[in-house]
């Protein structure tokens, strides 16, 4: 292989070995266009070549699962003839290069994945990670990403009902932007991306194809260096108005029976949509790219096939029904253009007027790509981080001051500056406002509500990837239990460094094992997701960061519970047990500047029992509030419960036995715990219910008053006025985001 050939492979991020595989599959050397097709379809982003063998270990089956991994999104049965279609996807790399458009098009892409399957999108969430806001660049990234998400979600009329935001130094040059969408479809009318029926027309709808986003998928499959800014042209520009028209028109078309299959053009654009439709359908597709609507003149076949211009869909309609399809798109001022046909030869044939410019077996692009069993190596840093000597952690004297500092740290402070920029009420289904443990929407016409939560664990997974993966799953399910919901399915977004580093692959494998074990114990099937590798900048990998998006069901929406205390005189209980584990905690990082120790242990049987107990208490309508204990531990969970979404404030008096250290008691992040408040009349019932579930339950105190008062062994340790405490928590991010 000569130098220029090598350079060509390098720009396409293909190895010599992969090139030889291409030659074998074609029986000849590929031309440049064909090389382009393989490079995007065999990129890490599209082919999952490093992750596939590990992902297989995740449980994907469950009694409600209608569609597991492998399609555009997962599907679960809700009853009442309805199905929920949902998925999460990352847009990390584009969001660093161009935060507004990168995040906006991330939302656009995940919305298309959902309506492609015949579902009307009804909820969005997002999981974001940035470096500390003390760095100006991170403030501008946060500002741009949030504005981009808001612009796209708000304009398309889909409420953003939940999410999470975390800050950590490792995301300084590599923010994480993971977007989740959920839609509702009639159970009997789920559309799959399978082109069937020789001679059926292949129809292009939506925006014209331009030169934007060419090689976006390969860009997302490499590390960043100082030249990241030069990659800006690989980021696409979103048009949420076009997306809105597109999904209204597609949903209208889906209500007829003229449509055979449909696929969005996301990563790898026309290449991916044509080859996947055909490969999954066991057919071939022939298209004439001269017929593809183009934004500019003189685009080459290579550019047209690889463009990642947004808001485009590819349909296969029944032959003879073209005019029906056109009429629906006309109504929405969109053009449906027939660009090719379904064939029976299994090939993707790309013609430019008369000439065939690419001829590739569809399966070779989609299914027969490379599969790597990459080497694994336990990272050496774990030797240093695993031990935490509690004796070296000075116990603070003023616990009230520690609490205020924690509540005003960006990780724990109110995220209202962010979620108020998202329309979280459109469609008028939101029945738990943002700020609680999970977003909850009702399903009109049924007694049902759906709960959803996004939870990631970066620091925990860095300190122990297995536990990090398991704890993310456990917390996400616990968040659903806190609102009274039963988990029915999940999607995951796995954000990691370069898979070419054995240490990263070891972290990846361990995270998968932890997630798999927790999913099995909690009976939670993973119905799909996304892997984002190469989150490295200048050689440094981010913390391994699995993000789990869980979906839960409430058979009776009136059983929903929210996190905040509802009034004075209710009794406050803690379900579960507090241990003295503070490894990897917010407290240790924020107050002592340490990222050290092991994450708290997780007893999955206990976890399951606490969640089941909480759900049962919710179903009996005993709970005035329920709130999961997570970052910041008990003291933070109590403080968050003092403040409601509409400005409500309710004080509390807490009395704790403290045999050991006060800081571990108040700030340990031991899992499988739930804070709840009940009217005194329900206390007896709650106690015996906890017993029947084998869940330890302790009474902590009572709601009411103008202050948060915490007594330890009968001595007042914390006494803070509500207004001051709320202000510290409420305005921390807002203040620091002021220009």
């Amino acid at each position, binding site marked *: 292989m000569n130098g220029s050939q090598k350079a060509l492979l390098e720009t396409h991020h293909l190895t010599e070995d992969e090139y030889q595989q291409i030659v074998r599959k074609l029986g000849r050397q590929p031309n440049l266009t064909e090389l382009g097709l393989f490079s995007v379809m065999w990129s890490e982003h599209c082919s999952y070549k490093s992750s596939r063998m590990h992902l297989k270990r995740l449980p994907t089956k469950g009694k409600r699962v209608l569609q597991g991994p492998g399609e555009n999104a997962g599907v679960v049965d809700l009853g009442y003839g309805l199905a929920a279609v949902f998925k999460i996807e990352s847009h990390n790399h584009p969001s660093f290069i161009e935060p507004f458009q990168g995040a906006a098009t991330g939302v656009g892409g995940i919305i298309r994945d959902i309506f492609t399957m015949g579902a009307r999108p009804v909820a969005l969430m997002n999981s974001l990670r940035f470096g500390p806001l003390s760095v100006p660049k991170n403030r501008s990234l946060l500002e741009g990403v949030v504005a981009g998400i808001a612009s796209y979600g708000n304009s398309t009329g889909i409420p953003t009902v939940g999410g999470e935001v975390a800050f950590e130094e490792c995301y300084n040059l590599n923010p994480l932007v993971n977007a989740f969408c959920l839609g509702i479809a009639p159970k009997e009318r789920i559309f799959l991306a399978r082109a069937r029926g020789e001679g059926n027309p292949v129809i292009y709808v939506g925006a014209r194809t331009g030169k934007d986003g060419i090689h976006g998928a390969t860009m997302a499959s490499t590390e960043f260096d100082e030249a990241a800014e030069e990659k800006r042209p690989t980021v696409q520009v979103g048009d949420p108005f076009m997306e809105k028209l597109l999904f209204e028109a597609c949903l209208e078309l889906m209500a007829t029976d003229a449509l055979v299959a449909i696929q969005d053009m996301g990563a790898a654009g026309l290449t991916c949509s044509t080859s996947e439709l055909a490969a999954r359908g066991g057919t071939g597709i022939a298209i004439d790219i001269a017929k593809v609507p183009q934004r500019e003149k003189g685009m080459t076949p290579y550019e047209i096939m690889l463009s990642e211009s947004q808001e485009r869909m590819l349909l296969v309609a029944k032959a003879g029904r073209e005019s029906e399809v056109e009429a629906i798109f006309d109504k929405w001022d969109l053009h449906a253009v027939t660009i090719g046909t379904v064939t029976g030869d299994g090939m993707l044939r790309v013609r430019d007027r008369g000439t065939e410019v690419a001829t590739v077996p569809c399966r070779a692009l989609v299914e027969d790509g490379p599969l790597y069993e990459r080497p694994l190596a336990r990272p050496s840093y774990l030797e240093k981080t695993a031990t935490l000597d509690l004796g070296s952690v000075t116990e603070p004297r003023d616990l009230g001051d520690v609490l205020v500092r924690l509540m005003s740290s960006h990780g724990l402070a109110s995220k209202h500056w962010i979620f108020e920029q998202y*329309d979280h009420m459109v469609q008028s289904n939101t*029945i738990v406002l943002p700020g609680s443990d999970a977003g909850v929407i009702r399903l009109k016409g049924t007694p049902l509500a759906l709960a959803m939560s996004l939870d990631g664990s970066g620091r925990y997974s860095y300190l122990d990837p297995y536990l990090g993966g398991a704890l993310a799953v456990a917390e996400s399910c616990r968040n659903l239990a806190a609102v009274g919901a039963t988990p029915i399915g999940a999607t995951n977004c796995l954000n990691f460094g370069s898979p070419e580093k054995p240490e990263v692959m070891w972290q990846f494998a361990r995270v998968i094992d932890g997630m798999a074990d927790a999913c099995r114990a909690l009976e939670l099937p993973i119905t799909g997701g996304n892997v984002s590798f190469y989150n490295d900048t200048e050689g440094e990998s981010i913390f391994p960061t699995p993000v789990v998006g869980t979906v839960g069901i409430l058979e009776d929406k009136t059983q929903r519970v929210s996190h905040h205390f509802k009034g004075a005189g209710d009794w406050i209980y803690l379900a579960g047990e507090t241990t003295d584990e503070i490894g990897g905690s917010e407290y240790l990082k924020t107050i002592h500047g340490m990222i050290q120790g092991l994450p708290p242990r997780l007893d999955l049987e206990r976890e399951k029992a606490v969640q089941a107990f909480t759900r049962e208490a919710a179903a009996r309508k005993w709970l005035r509030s329920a709130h999961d204990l997570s970052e910041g531990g008990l003291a933070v969970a109590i403080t968050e419960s003092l403040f409601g979404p509409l400005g409500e404030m309710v004080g509390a008096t807490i009395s704790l036995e403290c045999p050991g250290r006060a800081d571990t008691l108040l700030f340990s992040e031991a899992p499988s715990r739930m804070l709840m408040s009940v009217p005194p009349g329900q206390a007896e019932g709650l106690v015996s219910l906890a017993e029947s579930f084998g869940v330890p339950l302790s009474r902590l105190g009572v709601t009411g008053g103008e202050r948060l008062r915490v007594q330890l062994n009968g001595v007042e340790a914390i006494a803070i006025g509500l207004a001051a405490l709320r202000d510290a928590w409420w305005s921390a991010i807002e203040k620091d985001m002021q220009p």
Partner: protein
Amino acid sequence: MPRFAIVVFPGSNCEGDVLYALREVLGQEAVLVWHKETSLAGYDAALLPGGFAHGDYLRPGAIARFSPIMGSVISMAEEGKPVIGICNGFQVLMEAGLLPGAMLRNKTLRYVCRYVNLRVETTTSPLTRECRKGDVLRIPIGHADGNFYADPADLEELERGGQVMLRYSTPAGELADEANPNGSLNHIAGITNKEGNVVGLMPHLDRSYQPELGSDHGLRLFGSLVASVS
């Protein structure tokens, strides 16, 4: 039974909420009317819902005012029938010249979605006839361009003519800068035309019509509308 037309532009996204409140909650006859239609004959009132008509490109409402349906919306307004613009619909009515003033970008320059408190200033409008003056309603907003502006002469006329229908206030009904979410002049959240039949407001009554949504105060506005055409 009165008939309500809900005008749908490409990019509207609250038409379903308005429809649900009128049809399912209040049992009224309400119909979605596509913007390419040209007649509103047979309807007793028209509502222009929230959203991003034509993507809000150029300026909110600036393109929607040229939609084919707008001729008949203007005729309805001239006939004295209630014409209600909610959020983006309010912006469209301003662009169409049916209501005075203009919307500037929010003072924070950011989109804002949250519950606000609104003080009822007049009970002669078709949306507030079942309220009392001084009532405080809790209803959410969701907009980026809701900072009401009118030149001094128009503002003076609005105030003098009793055309200010709702103002942002504290829960106790006091006017305060902290309670004004977008910087609107005189804390204005909703107005009427001189005749009182054309109404525009930024708050989403269509998101607060049942207690489980956080408030049902929007239902009092819908109820007033139903009463005013019955």
